């Protein structure tokens, strides 16, 4: 039971990362029909920007606002700067290539991914970096029995859930969210409604990477060590999560992320840690064979 609870907490933590990153994939895919391969690397960029902000700002911010103040500064700073990076990415690597077709777009995305991860390596070095101890909040909350949850994990799960709720509200309940979904379904008709498609594109390319950056900073706070190619596995698993939930579908990405995180953690706890990634990718393949529309996606027929 203790093992189960611990793995559940671990699963929810890592699932939060997957869900946050998956939302970025799914929004970009929904609107642009593009797998943004560089998205995982924007997650890494977020982790590094957060790291730097904590290192240079921790003394001052921690002294002024306490350790959580430093964390908030790092999170907000990382989200804004990575969101802007997302806008630049769209402008430079995707916008000029749309007309050339699918394949060049995939290559451009891969190129952008390689560029960002190696740019991070060039800027911060090829070795692991550790988040500054002084900047990471310590302590834990007892739940029941011997089961405790660290404040960092608790914050990860709560902040992620709060942001997911916010995103759910924006996308599913507001008129702007309806405009985003309408643009994903039918760009031309959305334009006839007076929806500026370019604005929608800017929205998804800012918000998606910003959410990824949030996950990146929290990953750094949870596991302390970060490396330049950290985002690759997270990215691939988050993409798996978005397929699990049904790609192009925001609630699906959230559900898929949390579910994948919990399944992975339970597999790790009860079966094997070394094989957990194989488990995740087998899930991916099985879903695509059995139910390619995901848990809550709908089938779109191809018109001849």
């Amino acid at each position: 039971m203790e093992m189960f609870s611990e793995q559940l907490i671990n699963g929810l933590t890592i699932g939060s990362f997957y869900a946050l990153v998956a939302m970025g994939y799914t929004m970009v895919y929904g609107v642009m029909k593009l797998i943004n391969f560089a998205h995982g690397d924007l997650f890494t960029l977020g982790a590094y920007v957060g790291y730097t902000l904590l290192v240079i700002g921790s003394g001052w911010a921690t002294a002024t606002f306490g350790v959580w103040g430093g964390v908030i500064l790092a999170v907000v700073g990382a989200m804004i700067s990575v969101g802007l990076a997302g806008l630049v990415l769209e402008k430079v690597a995707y916008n000029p290539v749309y007309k050339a077709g699918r394949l060049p777009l995939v290559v451009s995305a891969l190129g952008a991914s390689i560029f960002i991860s190696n740019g991070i390596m060039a800027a911060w070095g090829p070795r692991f970096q550790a988040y500054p101890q002084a900047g990471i909040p310590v302590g834990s909350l007892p739940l029941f029995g011997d089961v405790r949850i660290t404040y960092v994990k608790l914050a990860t799960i709560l902040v992620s859930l709060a942001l997911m709720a916010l995103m759910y509200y924006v996308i599913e309940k507001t008129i702007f969210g309806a405009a985003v979904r309408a643009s994903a379904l039918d760009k031309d008709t959305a334009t006839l409604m007076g929806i500026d498609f370019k604005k929608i594109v800017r929205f998804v390319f800012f918000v998606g990477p910003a959410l990824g950056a949030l996950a990146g900073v929290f990953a750094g706070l949870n596991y302390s060590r970060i490396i330049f190619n950290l985002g690759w596995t997270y990215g691939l698993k988050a993409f798996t999560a978005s397929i699990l939930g049904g790609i192009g579908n925001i609630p699906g990405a959230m559900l898929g992320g949390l579910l994948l995180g919990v399944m992975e953690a339970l597999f790790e706890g009860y079966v094997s840690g070394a094989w957990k990634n194989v488990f995740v990718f087998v899930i991916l393949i099985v879903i695509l064979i059995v139910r390619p529309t995901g848990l809550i996606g709908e089938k779109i027929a191809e018109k001849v």
Partner: protein
Amino acid sequence: MSNFTRTIFERINNSQSGKGARLNNKRQQRILLFVLVGLMLVFPLLPFITNYWIDVGFFVGIYVLLGLSLNIVLGEVGLFNLGQAGFYAIGAYTTGILFTQLNIPIVLLLPISALVSGGFAYLVTTRIIHLKGDYLCIVTIGIGEIIRIVANNNPFGLTNGPNGITGIGNPDFGLFSISTPTQFFYYVWIIVALVIAGLINLQKSRIGRAWNYIREDEIAAETNGIDVRHYKLVAFLIGTALAGVAGNIYGSKMMIISPENFTFMESCLIFVIVLLGGLGSIPGTILGAAIVVIFPEIFRQFASYRLLFFGAAMVVMMVFRPGGILPRRREKAGFSGLGVSNLPADEDKYIENVVARGLVFKRAAAPAQAARPVSVLADKEYKVLETQHVTIRFGGLVAVDKFDLNVREGEITSLIGPNGAGKTTLFNGITGIYPPSEGRIIFMGEDITSLKPHQIISRGIARTFQNIRLFPSLTCIENVMSSPHYHATAGAWASIFRTPRQKKEEQSILETAAYWLYQIGLWEYRNELAKNLPYGKQKLLEIARALASSPRLLILDEPSSGLNDKETEELMEFLSKLKAEGFTLLLIEHDMNVVMGISDTVIVMDMGAKIAEDVPSKIYNNPKVIEAYLGKDE
């Protein structure tokens, strides 16, 4: 038909001068090729070339193999495969494990590695091959990762985990063994040369063309007789087997292999080689491999920045030259690019002979006809096609409602009706694209209701599409060569080794295609890319492609839409001619002048159901028809 082609000979004569330039160009290419091969031969012997650079040359060879292996899947068929390193790993690990555990000679393991890698790929891809673009891409990434992690986890103590397998031996041919850098250099490049020779033969065969048809337009390929699923699997099998070969050679050279050699980054590199060179281009792949291997060697001192530049270069390349550096130029190669042997140098002499000889592939006789006297050419009472109560539903929407359609032999039957009446859907039902929800479709006495599109064309039904579905980046002659595909039988091996029978088949395919291209009046455009033709000519090209399958029944979906008056008139004349030759035609048509001018029977469809069927002169005054078209009087 002669007025279609009257002016063509004049035009051909005018274009003679261009041909000389092409031949000259060809000679230059041949000289360039000799120089390059010569350089490759003497490269390791040059005094200033160190072992280090000979090894670089070896690795270029390995990556050429890997690039070619992926080029088949990605370049020729257009399937996104980002897991090629996994199959490369399977080849290397098969070699490593079988050599170290069972001491099987490396040379023997070369074909075994290919088989294991290809066989594994075949097994895993049969279930996922239908996935589209990005989805397939993600699955192949997953497969590549699974393979790497499995190797890393040392199952049954076979792979030795992260440390990898050490002590792999050298290729030993009994009399001599391959061990020095120079020997390995020649070893890998001889294999590369053999592979390229085989691949060129494949590229210029019905197999290679089938792959390209799929890449250009899957649905058009399927309706023109290409078993899309089968040819995708064949491509995966051959491609991954080649990656297995590369794995074997790599393992025997390095003598040690570990999971680190086969990461996602490796798959990306192979992907980039193909894209950098140009999809489906063998010279492009070689150049791409050379760039990817040599570029980082030259910039060694900037080691930590080279991937940064590399990523940026990929983006810049896609922005400014998405087609690659050396894309395959089909329109330049002309007929010599088709791989058919014993072609006369003069393509116009060729077509004269072809036309003189007549059709190669004859239409199959109707089963009912076999018993009849030969003198009866077309039996007007014989129903070639019959749909019985065909219903096609999409969700709750009934697009076609219990439709009975009879098409009599030798007639032109036209299906008309307002927009959205369900005409095209019915055509899609007949040709197997949307299998009917209910009812049966009988063609020449055979129930074809549940057949796939590629089987239906082989029964003798060919079609065109409302919105033109050509293979845009292939030449006109290649477009038309698609539909005789099913008449031939040569497989991959026969194509690689160019057996006499395969050569004969290829000649027949070309002859049939050339015959129809000429008949429809597009011979002068034979080496143009289909996408560069004006709209009206594209429509004609699609009809020629359908005819080249030697169909019993030709189904045309709005053949005259988008044509100008003159083109429409020519089309009508051509269709009448076809009828005179004994073809049976079924049309959807909106131009009433065409319908009334050439049809024997007109069937009117509205809201998915038949509202009238009659001879043209009576349809015109049928009140139901007037109502369907013009609406009810208030």
